[in-house]
């Protein structure tokens, strides 16, 4: 799915999909949230894996996890993605980091990795392709 964010907004608005953004650096999290909300998604925010798990346990309509990898707390993004995959297998997984890539063992099944810094189109594109699968 290509095109400007405005078109994507139209699609997402019908479906009202919720995405959980996990990132410890506040400004970076705000940017990600802003991009996704502009595209029409509902966004929940967490500053680390523990907050993310609390939110996932409380709410049941989160469709996609968008998480940084290097975070303080009990586990990093890779660990979080693995745990989410076990407990909530329906949730799509998109990991991001300043690192260049992930090894195959680190990337969860059917998950995606995106290198920072993101372009808006790359982020929305990845999210949509994961949701469509």
């Amino acid at each position, binding site marked *: 799915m290509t095109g400007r964010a405005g078109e994507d907004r139209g699609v997402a608005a019908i479906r009202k999909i919720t995405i959980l953004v996990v990132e410890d*650096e506040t*400004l*970076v999290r*705000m940017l990600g949230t802003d991009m996704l909300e502009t595209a029409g998604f509902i966004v929940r925010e967490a500053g680390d894996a523990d907050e993310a798990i609390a939110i996932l346990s409380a709410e049941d309509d989160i469709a996609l996890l968008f998480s940084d990898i290097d975070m303080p707390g009990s586990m990093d993004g890779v660990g979080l993605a693995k745990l989410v995959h076990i407990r909530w297998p329906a949730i799509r997984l998109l990991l991001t980091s300043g690192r*260049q890539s992930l090894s195959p063992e680190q990337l969860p099944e059917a998950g995606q990795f995106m290198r920072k810094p993101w372009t808006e189109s790359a982020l929305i594109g990845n999210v949509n392709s994961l949701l469509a699968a």
Partner: protein
Amino acid sequence: MSEDKPALIAEAAAVDYEDLFETAPCGYLSTDGNGRILRANRTFSDWTGFGGDLLAGRHFADLLPIAGKIFYETHFAPMLHVQSAFNEVALDIVTADGRHLPVLVNAAVRRDGDGSIASIRITLFKSTSRRAYERGLIAQRDTAEANILVEREDGELREQFIAVLGHDLRNPLAAIASGVRLLDSEVLSERSRKILTLIDGSVVRAAGLIDNVLDFARGRLGGGITLQREAREPLEPVLRQVVAELRAIAPDRTVDSIYNLAEPIDCDRVRIGQLVSNLLGNALTHGARNEPVRLNAQTHGCVLTISIANGGPPISEAARARLFQPFYRGDGGVREQGLGLGLHIASEIARAHGGTLEVRSDAAETVFTFTMTLMQEV
């Protein structure tokens, strides 16, 4: 010649073998098959302070310190039994006054008709300075080996430090960059927008500096520039982004860009972006301010060429030779900005891709050209 022969034989007969033996410049010993001394020459007696009568009947190993006794039993004697000779053995002889005399020993065996050892002939040479030299070599070797271990540990620590540093430096910068993008979509006064653009420019410069410094540090540790080749993502957007960033830093300058890229291109596009960023930055810093900087990126057959040109005075021949060395900051005169790493890193990136980075400079223009052969997918 044959007339001389009888004379030579006569001369030989006149040699005093007894004297030859006794006063030889080395020690001579002979022992029986069990190692008990039969005879010792005067030289040996003089060296050790033991008269011939004191030595006869004593076991050769008695003259050795404990370590030597063990060595005699476990190496020396067995070797003589099996091989009939044992050469270049370093031993210490314990002299009459209890000192250790370092010697180098050759030994050879005479056998009976039935093959058992009849006698053993031993020659000994003093080797005090040689032993000191060898000890010195061993000490040096041990020190060098210990140093290598320390260096390796230090190297690992430095690697970890670099990794953490990179991460810690980039995080707050990423936060600032995100903040800039967030503000960018707000309604801002003209002054605020200008400030935002300047902040963005600084972020770009800082990021470039961090990349270059960390790459350099890592490269110096022997790691070199490692690539993450990725043919699936296109290169052009990365180059466009780099150009956009540099235009943002230097809004009063003109950067022209032409792209003719047949994707996919198998390369590390982040690194190529870094290479272009360094070259563009260099062109903007050193090029004539009233002339455009021109980027031309194209693929031709299976060759990728990216060239960056700027106007201004040419780079001297001498400078061109040193351009890609680390820390080289130009011919002096004007206070140079930057660390002098940009071109060095760019050339390392070129090399890691199996390509080249060359410079051509005359009064009309200075052009840096990156050339790389593309892997053909069959």
